[in-house]
């Protein structure tokens, strides 16, 4: 007896009789002997739910999480409180166990939710259109650059080195097979990108910046807009890993970005060891037909009643098989649903207050660390992340903090060899003043 397999032996006998074969093996006669396995599956004996619970709890216990550990890590994955109401709503079976809304009459829940998601995302980013989501911030950035290449018919893109280093690696992987060139823009002593290094703009399909960037610094997007759009065709791509920042700071759209894309994990999605996340993707309306990914549009039914459908599917791979805008087939539907619920439950007022609290807590820790004699590496406004410079030989301090259950930032040297003894700290609303004080006290000792 297995609880996911309902057939009794009587059921099986009756069904085999209808099919006209004697046993289950006879259903597989179209598979040649030479294609078959030599031995049955070598998997463990089936676990009961009780045994599974015990096993999984044991695995989960072998991880460093709050409250036992104080984790001051961001770098593209943020600890934000997720209201209980969202967790409950997300578990509604009709949301959870549905698939792509191919049949709109019985998928209006998914369709309206994603339409609302698209709308709230455009409001958050100050953009005109947003798609139904991509896999994650990194592949979203790669898709944005491929889109710029399609729109401009140019073969070269520029990417700031202050963009998340792991995103840049995904971009390199996506663009390598087709031979498009990726030029890296250096960062300056203030932690912002040095756009003067760009050279001849006419060669570039797009220029990508992250703001807040990987160091937590807000880029000078006003200057970037003027510089990049000096060439009429070059597209300005603004990416992000912490969209909560736009609760406090100006949006990419307000600086005339052509594409705004990034990671939406912050919007009510648990960190889950890095995935699933949410690839947020928005653009100016004039580019909508070149955009990758699924789109939901408003329409009416036979009686003139409002309803929602998948639309502009002619861009997608089930119609234009080899010339589709992307190979992406589904989206991150459930994660986009979480994000919609999160933005709705905070509301405009709550979103702004939460953003301000993140900022203020980070500023508090910054000041306390400075008072403790440490250096803040970049003198540029930040949101909830910043880079701290420790005296040489900081590994011992870092290890000592770990031994005392503090994960004190991300060591930057593996990503930026020139930044030895530099650590990227993150503070969100979940870090209490008491936790921050305890950290500073431990560092001082």
């Amino acid at each position, binding site marked *: 007896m297995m609880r996911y397999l309902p057939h009794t032996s009587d059921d099986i006998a009756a069904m085999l009789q*209808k099919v006209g074969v004697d046993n289950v093996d006879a259903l597989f006669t179209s598979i040649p002997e030479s294609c078959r*396995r030599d031995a049955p599956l070598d998997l463990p004996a089936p676990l009961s739910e009780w045994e599974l619970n015990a096993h999984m709890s044991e695995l989960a216990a072998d991880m460093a999480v709050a409250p036992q550990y104080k984790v001051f890590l961001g770098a593209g994955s943020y600890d934000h409180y997720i209201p209980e109401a969202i967790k409950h709503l997300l578990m509604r079976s009709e949301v959870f166990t549905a698939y792509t809304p191919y049949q709109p009459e019985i998928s209006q829940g998914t369709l309206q939710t994603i339409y609302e998601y698209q709308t709230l995302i455009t409001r958050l980013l100050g953009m005109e259109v947003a798609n139904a989501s991509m896999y994650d911030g990194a592949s979203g950035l790669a898709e944005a650059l491929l889109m710029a290449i399609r729109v401009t018919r140019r073969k070269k893109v520029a990417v700031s080195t202050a963009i998340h280093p792991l995103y840049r690696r995904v971009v390199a992987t996506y663009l390598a097979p087709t031979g498009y060139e990726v030029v890296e823009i250096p960062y300056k002593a203030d932690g912002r990108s040095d756009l003067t290094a760009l050279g001849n703009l006419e060669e570039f399909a797009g220029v990508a910046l992250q703001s807040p960037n990987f160091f937590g610094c807000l880029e000078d997007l006003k200057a970037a807009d003027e510089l990049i759009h000096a060439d009429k065709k070059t597209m300005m791509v603004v990416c992000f890993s912490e969209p909560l920042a736009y609760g406090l700071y100006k949006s990419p759209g307000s600086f005339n970005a052509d594409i705004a894309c990034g990671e939406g994990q912050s919007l009510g999605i648990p960190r889950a060891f890095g995935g699933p996340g949410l690839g947020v993707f928005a653009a100016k309306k004039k580019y909508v037909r070149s955009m990758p990914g699924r789109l939901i549009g408003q329409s009416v039914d*036979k009686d003139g009643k409002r309803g929602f459908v998948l639309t502009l599917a002619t861009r997608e791979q089930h119609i234009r098989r080899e010339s589709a805008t992307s190979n992406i087939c589904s989206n991150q539907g*459930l994660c986009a649903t979480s994000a919609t619920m999160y933005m709705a439950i905070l509301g405009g007022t709550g979103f702004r207050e939460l953003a301000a609290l993140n900022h203020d807590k980070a500023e508090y820790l910054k000041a306390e660390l400075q008072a403790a004699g440490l250096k803040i590496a970049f003198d540029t406004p930040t949101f909830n992340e910043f880079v701290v410079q420790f005296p040489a030989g900081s590994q011992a301090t870092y290890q000592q903090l770990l031994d005392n259950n503090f994960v004190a930032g991300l060591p930057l040297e593996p990503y930026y060899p020139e930044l030895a003894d530099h650590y990227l700290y993150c503070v969100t609303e979940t870090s209490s003043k008491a936790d921050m004080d305890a950290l500073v006290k431990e560092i001082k000792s």
Partner: protein
Amino acid sequence: MKEPVGTTGLIFNEPLLWERGAKGRSGFSLPPRDVASSHVADDLRGDGPDFPDLSELDVVRHFTRLSQWNFGVDSGMYPLGSCTMKYNPKTNERQAGLPGLAVSHPLLPQELSQGALKMMFDLQHYLAEITGLPAVTLQPAAGSQGELTGMMVINAYLQSKGEKRSKVLIPDTAHGTNPASATLCGLKSVAVKSNEQGILSTEKIAELMDEDTAGLMVTNPNTLGLFEEDIQKVTEIVHAKGGLVYGDGANMNAIMGIVDIQKLGVDVLHLNLHKTFSTPHGGGGPGSGPICVTEALEPFLPVPRVIEKDGKYLLSEDFPQSVGKLHAFYGNFGILVRAYSYILTMGADLHKASQYAVLNANYIKESLKDVYHLAYDRPCMHECVFNDKLQAAHKVTTLDIAKRLMEYGFHPPTIYFPLVVQGAIMVEPTETESKETIDAFIDTMRTIAQEARENPEQFHEAPQTTKVKRLDETAAARNPCLTG
């Protein structure tokens, strides 16, 4: 026929989010403010997003009502061909929600994330055992990203031999993502027509395969639900010309514990954990699309890779020939946890899932083939493909049949795919449906066939009992309204 499962229930209306609310409300509980406010530079400060302000109950009621307009696996039978809409076990949600797994940071020091790494290492091992291909990456975030990764691996392998090939063979029964993924790898798709039995012909492959062709992308069982019987001869031809074979594992649910993928001559196979391994489809993702490869292709898999060293689990970047990275971190980890829980629950009985999936599809095929035309009347695997040929005389189409099915409380099958069957109705019952449910589906399909003969007009108005009736998709595409 017995009373149908579908009825006209109580359906609430619910406006759009921003048509509700009042400024100053919030459904969110902020933690106490224990630090002072801090100055924000004026030239950077924005106004914050224009989201509606709602109470917690507003939000709860909104999304509860919306959910009631949806059909999910938990609502009823969802025989959507090629999508493997099997039951999504509830226990998997408990496991994925365990704090150690759900809230752990991906860049924790490795000694502090041994639980997650061990789980990934063991899952790789199980997927290797299930497919017969020895090396696995869990990084691709969905089936289509798995395809792309697989083709990148093939490209990289050929490059390591000093070769750059420009084409790839793709059967006409393939998923639409196959040609799109090939394009992203700089490969031009060459369509291969299947033969009159609905499978690949060795002659056709021999004719098309040459030394400028990177290989073949093949789905087996194919999208007609048929096993590619000549697969070994086909892959031999591709290999003889120096090409490699990519296997689309979307239909793995038919052959677990039965077929050894390596013996088929497949070099790379992607799996859809959200199909075969029971993870929820979530209204269109997140999925997960690991790929399994032969030993020869292992050096090219994405990094970091989870390895074991002296009883400790590590993330290793030390694979210089790797194609690189496809995901910021390690893929859709939360989905991996669910698939891992499913595999441990099924254990050595996993092959039974495939056996019953195939039994159910054949049972439906035999029970309906006198009233719906079968595109290929041969023993099928886990799905069977009918069309609307017998209903055409009454001007009832596949779309009409699909819409009528909703009124009886079933999700329609996949329609108009695969493209090689005109008016295709692709039924995949999966192994988790009981005989009673399948019999009810069969009865309903037979009733609909009878209605098509006797009362065809009513079909054009179907569905009547749903939240909305047929929607104007043409107008939606002509004047796109994508935001409110």
